[in-house]
């Protein structure tokens, strides 16, 4: 599998470590209420199709990136710097 780091370019997946779905970028407001926090902390989707995951370019530039990929076709569709997604 090849992942394109927005800074380093296309790289082998061994240079990256996987964190999981990009929920960390969508942290609710402290006052958002129990339901929103329950969802954020405990509930995860398991989609067949497009996902947005956090990857860390540990063996490269050290950037956190958000990778859009398809779990059915294994297609890697795109990647963005997490710092810019979160902005």
């Amino acid at each position: 599998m090849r992942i394109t780091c927005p800074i380093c370019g296309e790289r082998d997946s061994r240079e990256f470590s996987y964190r999981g779905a990009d929920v960390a970028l969508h942290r609710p407001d402290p006052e958002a209420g129990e339901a929103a926090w329950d969802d954020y902390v405990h509930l995860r989707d398991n989609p067949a199709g497009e996902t947005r995951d956090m990857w860390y370019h540990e063996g490269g530039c050290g950037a956190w990136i958000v990778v859009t990929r398809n779990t059915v076709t294994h297609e890697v569709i795109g990647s963005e710097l997490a710092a810019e997604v979160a902005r």
Partner: protein
Amino acid sequence: MGDLIAKSACDGLLPLEIGGATLTEIVFDAITSVAPWRGHEQAVSDALKSQMGAAFPAPNRSTGKAKSRAVWSGRGQALVLGPPLEPIAGAAMTDQTDAWACVALEGPAARDVLARLVPIDLRDGSFKRGHAARTQLMHMSIVLMRTGADRYGIMALRSMAGTLVHDLETAMEAVAARG
């Protein structure tokens, strides 16, 4: 106080010449990490130019020449290899002179040796002279730069100097054995 004798990172390990590749240690007078604060990138680059003759490198690039080089080393940071620097306003700077093991791999077999160890595309079209990368050598984090047609600079953490030389030596022997 007696005179202390400084040992280089690869003392007793290098040089090596195996088949079409040689591996030698490079010792710099200083290695300084330079990280410009947001909004100060241009001023820091100008200051570097006047202090050591090379601009702050773009991602995946190095600037300057053998004794005075700046190599991109990650997001918003570069390592200056060679002359010690005076403090630069608008940049975080750290002396890392004794933190790195620096080697040069050169010769007609150099790229074949590296290709056994490093998971990036090393062909001429994608990794040219002046290009640099943060990548891995086996499982070790390195700074890699191409400094000539058949010449590469490799930097690993000093504590891993023995492993760096061992991995390169093994790959040099394997490439040489294929004739």
